[in-house]
């Protein structure tokens, strides 16, 4: 029984295919190369196109939101006169 358990262990350790094995390898050197490239980009945009998109979405939300807050503040500070 123990022999079959041991061989089960060996099989489970060997079943990771080459595709998913790449995900378990150390990819930090690749990232280090990407983020140390001398391209003048600031760190918040240096990762690629997704960085720019996220930045624009965040800016859009906060700028639009701040404008809306100021609008509501104006409305709230001028109460409707009641007859």
């Amino acid at each position, binding site marked *: 029984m123990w022999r079959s358990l041991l061989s089960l262990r060996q099989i489970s350790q060997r079943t990771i295919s080459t595709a998913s094995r790449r995900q*378990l390898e*150390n*990819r*930090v050197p690749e*990232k*280090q190369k*990407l*983020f*140390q490239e*001398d391209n003048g980009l*600031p*760190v*918040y945009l*240096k*990762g690629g196109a997704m960085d720019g998109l*996220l*930045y624009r*979405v*965040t*800016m859009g*939300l*906060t*700028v*639009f*939101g*701040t404008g*809306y*807050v100021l609008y*509501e*503040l104006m409305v709230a500070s001028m109460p409707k006169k009641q007859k």
Partner: protein
Amino acid sequence: MAHQAHSYHMVDPSPWPIFGAAAALLTTSGLIMWFHYNSSALLATGLLSMLLVMLQWWRDIVRESTFQGHHTPTVQKGLRYGMILFITSEAFFFLGFFWAFFHSSLVPTPELGGQWPPTGIKPLNPMEVPLLNTAILLASGVTVTWAHHSITEGNRKHAIHALTLTILLGFYFTALQAMEYYEAPFSIADSVYGSTFFVATGFHGLHVIIGSTFLTVCLLRLIKFHFTSNHHFGFEAAAWYWHFVDVIWLFLYMTIYWWGS
């Protein structure tokens, strides 16, 4: 290319501080819109932008440290001071709620029946789920220490196992506490007993969720080989925070749950 003659980190200009301030404005204004004008759009925008700022700011810190190498020992020392000071400020935050509890429970007013727990309040049995929760958090303190030792010893497999176990214990605590909240025979509206109980344990629960999230980020970084055996401050900060959350629970358990029952 010019090189600096010091070991400090001169950061790239970043939009996150001002966007973070704007997000705080939107969130607080959003609360007012929700409370007084029955509109939750601004609050949702505020919380979403807060989340986006946090994700991108901390993502950038990982880039600056692990990928760009800016976290010299000098920088790390500053980060250690910073985390200690932050946790200290959180300790004072909870001190306020403990003060409120003792203010009301040491001298119970006639309106409460002159006793603590107040008349009509059936407190939770401290020897049931709260005791289990205590054991869970204490065990998670052991597992997070095991994870730390595994990291310093270079044992990747044990570190991943121990940190995963810590996070699972944190989730187990949160699930049990949520169930207790649902099943409790008293609510936050039930006199100052309900107020002190749910505000103190509620903020603690929020900190457990924050701590679990921090640990989960560390687990992902651990799996992605970000930590070395002698440089893993992100993990240490998470572990300190987690121990703090555990200590706060022990005080909550001894005072509100046990002495207060």
